[in-house]
């Protein structure tokens, strides 16, 4: 086979891979077909990798095969993490993706330099800057999610100006390099400044904003891969990068809408300032609390129950106990559904994955709008570890920092029960008037332990008449 024929066959493999990638995402539109999508993606990726190995220009395989083995050895454990660790794993994989795209861009610069065309330099500079800032930004995000760094927003006076100045420096360095690609000493400086900007970008962002940030970093990682495709003139990279980039972008928009905030507000307007006087009011109001026995009694008497999970459920690892609660209530003939807010948890779809892991059928997981239209007919709304996404202040108090954010309006249900460690406000630092309503019962305690207690109480109760008659 001539080299030209081989090159054409490799290109054909890349085209096939690109088509399979699009099909993979298409099949993800229904849970039933979704696994075919993964298979399509795997076939496409394998085809592209194997075809590349047949490239006759490759002279030495040692530094391909060893890193492939190392990569597999890192990838397999990262593919087997617990479902509660998925947000930090995802952030880490954005970091890896951005790392590989940017180091390839760096290698390409030094292979070509100092004879880089101006146009080639624009592409390389953009690619490397975006890749580098995504790398460090994603590492910080992963560190926050893993609990290595504090999840609260870390802010200081003049922060936005410092960050913008650093970004400006990176852009200026990129421009100078474009005009003078032979100034090779500036290239590592530009990389360093971009790495620093990634750190500054994500450090001030709090845990509750992670779903947006992780989506945005997703879109940057895709963009850097697509730009690398421009640098190397590789269409398959352009396609895969564009798909990844548009996916991250769509998710970012959905997350921003679900918080009624703009990109700019998420990136540059960290939450955290308590509205003046909020704490003073807190002490005057009374709260009704209940124990597990009372809660079990109310749930047993209900015919329709809505459970609203939040990040607290993930932190307490309570999803399997919640599954037990779902089982024992369903057995008593209670209709149990789960209301999922788009930004509940730390990444898009986080709650769905945790509940699916606990074997709860996905047709019980209801999106926010459908849940809201059904809550007036619901006897009990049980909030587990969710705070801001159920806060009625978002609808009623125009002074609240979350005013305008769509919420799951649990106050419409006949009775509201909230499992929470204490009355302390959530990540956004905003008091929740829901807790002081007459129809609300606070269930203070660890989510996992409390749900476990409720399940025990329910199991100990006399079985309903129909079931008892059957025995």
């Amino acid at each position, binding site marked *: 086979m001539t080299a030209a024929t081989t090159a054409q066959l490799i290109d054909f493999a890349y085209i096939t891979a*690109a088509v399979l990638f699009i099909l993979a995402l298409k099949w993800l539109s229904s849970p039933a077909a979704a696994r075919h999508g993964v298979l399509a993606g795997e076939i496409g990726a394998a085809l592209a990798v194997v075809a590349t190995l047949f490239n006759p*220009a490759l002279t030495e395989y040692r530094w391909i095969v060893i*890193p492939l083995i190392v990569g597999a050895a890192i*990838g397999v454990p*990262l*593919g087997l993490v617990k479902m509660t660790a998925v947000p930090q794993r995802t952030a880490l994989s954005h970091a890896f993706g951005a790392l590989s795209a940017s180091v390839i861009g760096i290698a390409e610069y030094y292979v070509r330099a100092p004879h880089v065309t101006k146009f080639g330099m624009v592409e390389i500079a953009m690619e490397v800057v975006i890749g580098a800032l995504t790398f460090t930004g994603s590492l910080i995000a992963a560190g926050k999610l893993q609990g290595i760094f504090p999840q609260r927003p870390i802010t200081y006076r003049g922060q936005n100006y410092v960050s913008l100045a650093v970004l400006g420096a990176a852009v200026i360095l990129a421009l100078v390099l474009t005009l003078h690609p032979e100034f090779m000493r500036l290239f590592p400086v530009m990389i360093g400044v971009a790495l620093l900007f990634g750190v500054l970008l994500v450090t001030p962002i709090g845990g509750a904003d992670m779903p947006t940030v992780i989506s945005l970093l997703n879109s940057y990682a895709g963009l850097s891969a697509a730009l690398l495709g421009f640098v190397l003139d590789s269409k398959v990279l352009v396609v895969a990068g564009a798909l990844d980039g548009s996916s991250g972008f769509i998710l970012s928009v959905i997350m921003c809408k679900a918080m009624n905030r703009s990109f700019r507000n998420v990136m540059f307007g960290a939450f955290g300032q308590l509205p003046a006087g909020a704490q003073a009011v807190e002490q005057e109001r009374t709260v009704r609390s209940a124990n597990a026995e009372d809660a079990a009694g109310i749930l047993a008497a209900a015919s329709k129950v809505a459970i609203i999970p939040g990040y607290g459920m993930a932190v307490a690892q309570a999803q399997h106990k919640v599954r037990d609660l779902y089982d024992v209530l369903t057995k008593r003939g209670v209709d149990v559904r789960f209301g999922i807010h788009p930004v509940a948890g730390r990444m898009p779809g986080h709650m*769905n994955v945790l509940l699916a892991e606990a074997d709860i059928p996905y047709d019980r997981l209801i999106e926010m709008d459908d849940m809201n239209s059904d809550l007036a007919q619901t006897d009990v709304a049980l909030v587990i570890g969710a705070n801001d996404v159920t806060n009625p202040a978002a609808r009623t108090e125009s002074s609240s920092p979350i005013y305008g954010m769509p919420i799951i309006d649990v106050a419409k249900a006949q009775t509201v029960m909230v499992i929470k460690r204490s009355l302390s406000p959530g990540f956004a630092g905003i008091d929740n008037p829901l807790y002081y309503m007459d129809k609300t019962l606070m269930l203070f305690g660890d989510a996992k332990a409390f749900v476990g207690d409720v399940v025990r109480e329910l199991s100990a109760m006399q079985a309903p008449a129909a079931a008892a008659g059957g025995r």
Partner: protein
Amino acid sequence: MPPDFLSNLFVFILAGFVGFEVIKRVSPLLHTPLMSLTNALDAIVVVAAITIAGLQETRLAVVLGAIAVAASFSNMVGGFLITDRMLRMFKSGRAKKS
């Protein structure tokens, strides 16, 4: 403007458009697997890494290429693995009863 750039831009815009139309239809139920799957697809960067590492143009290019091969291949393997694990967990209540 180099002709390569224009043809790449052409592909980028069309692929972005296709991505937008396809991903819009993905149910919010599957947004986490969507992110891990696109991550695995994005790891196709590995083909560029393999080429850089195997062409042996400079020592630096080989080192950086080898790092990129390991980083992107770990994403590819890990991304497909965890996406499949997640999707296996999603079961319909109706399917179970019948």
